[in-house]
């Protein structure tokens, strides 16, 4: 459950699209996969076909202020990363798919057609991080008001602060 070892699958290769069924000993270790943006949808479908029944989680990370993260060879780090957690109940195995998404074009293919349950989670990632999921039937904000500007979870989006009013300090009047 805890240790994360990069899987052999690398970006763009055919091996990445056809994931192997994990061995018994690996069951309690999350597998990692780093597909390229173009092969991401294919890879998710392939995982679905080998028995990952449930899409547990979809979220996005903005690596603006932490560019030097460890990635396997062959993966070019980009500003955004879409992280998808798939769960196989039959194999009792989780796999975490991390897709690099460039700042200039923050969009990936939607996986709603593979896992309908990704609907709300992709909308959340769009709302809070500004990742556009191409092919999503209803790409609207979900948590923020419709007329909100900006995407709050991005690192260049400031945190609002309320000045703390102490008892002894003079009031606003």
């Amino acid at each position: 459950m805890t240790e994360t070892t990069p899987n052999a699958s690398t970006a763009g290769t055919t091996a990445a699209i056809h994931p192997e069924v994990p061995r018994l000993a690996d069951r309690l270790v999350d597998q990692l996969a780093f597909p390229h943006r173009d092969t991401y949808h294919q890879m998710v479908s392939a995982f679905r076909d080998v028995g990952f029944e449930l899409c547990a989680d979809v979220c996005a990370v903005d690596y603006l202020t932490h560019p030097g993260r460890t990635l396997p060879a062959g993966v070019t780090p980009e500003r955004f990363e879409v992280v998808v957690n798939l769960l196989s109940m039959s194999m009792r195995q989780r796999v975490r798919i991390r897709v690099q998404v460039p700042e200039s074009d923050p969009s990936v293919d939607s996986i709603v057609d593979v896992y309908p349950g990704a609907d709300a989670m992709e909308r959340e990632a769009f709302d809070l991080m500004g990742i556009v999921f191409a092919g999503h039937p209803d790409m609207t904000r979900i948590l923020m008001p419709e007329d909100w500007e900006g995407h709050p979870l991005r690192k260049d989006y400031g945190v609002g602060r309320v000045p703390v009013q102490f008892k002894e300090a003079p009031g606003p009047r």
Partner: protein
Amino acid sequence: MSEHDDREQAEIGLEDTERAHREAEERALVAETSEGAQELMPRGTTSAGELRQEVGAVLRLPEGGYVDPGDIDIDRRDDQTMIINMGPQHPSTHGVLRLMLELDGETVLRTKPIIGYLHTGMEKTGEELTYVQGATNTTRMDYLSPLHNELVFSLATEALLGVELPPRAVWIRMLMAELNRMSSHLMWMATNGMDLGSTSMMIYGFREREMVLSFFEKTTGLRMNHNYIRPGGVAADLPDGWQDDVEVICETVLARTYEYDELLTGQPIFRERTEAVGNISAEEALALSVTGPILRSTGVPWDLRRTMPYLDYNKLDFDVIVGSYGDNFDRYSVRLNEIRESIRMVRQIAEMMPPGDYRVQDRKVTPPPRARIDESMEALIHHFKVFTEGFRVPEGEVYVAIESPRGELGCYLVSDGTSKPYRMHIRAPSFVNLQALPLLLRGGLMADAVAVISSVDPVMGEVDR
């Protein structure tokens, strides 16, 4: 032109300005409260893909093709249906959940939950707080099972740190988590009873939950939002005589669950209103990423405590409760029996509770005991460091999931090597389970909608975060 005509003219002019004023006010009100494209639109202006999503999302045929949305309710046109709004302030939506329903008479055709009214940006806040402060933040997400939220955050942090907990800390966590599951399910029994018109059940549920909360108050100092389970262990040891308190709770609640049986389970009106209402199949539940009691009610024996054990759940003897039809009644019975299973587990934990330390004695992670601070300069420094700067967590990312009363509660944590999480994402079970609502409500009666919403058990604090 008589004087009379003039006055009439003036009155009409006055009426015009009044109407214009009223219309402007209405427009302003709509602009203020409208959620734009997030709302449920008439069929004419909804794309085929979105329509598919709204009529239940999982209309996938086995071979992977889609049902033609034109086939659905083909005889109903826009002018035969009505879109109504329910909430966000509605006594039975369990918080500020807003639903837009398309009705044909009394039958619900499409539903769209509109959420975000309680959104306070807790994931963003989590990036501003140190790991020591983090549990204070996450505990406020799902306010009915705060200890599970603390637990998942602490487990994720410890996974990154590589800290091994002393056995007593692990078992105290399990004890508190199971008691919390009881209190959460009891609260659900109460509100579900209220939604179905059984106000006695509401009072009973709250009464039993209060017993558990009193024990929490005794142990953690607070009834809710405890900040008790922290990275490195728990905040304090169990109070003296905790075995007796726990045994009283177990005995009383177990006896009372049989009273609930008499009050609800066998009652014809209750059965009528819950059986075959809001059905969902196992395939649909899995496709919609639904977990927890809703998934188990369809017959899928998936409980992370059993199937992917965390803490020491593999040392406990308990059953995974499953239903068979996936209707309201199955969800009710799964939860009722999970209370009994939790009681079973709590009794085993109380018996097997190991002695020892309740937190890891690593000064870089947990503060030193209060008494040491007066004697040791080093202890004082450690104490100061932990509470001002926090501890540094090695670079990495981890996803940890536990079984909360509502389903799979996950925490995705990214660390950049500082004392604050670089990204903290909580996979909230209520948020995901809410996606099943359109499917559960579709084709049912408006009067059952309230019962179905209740059976999904959404906690809006967790949905919106």
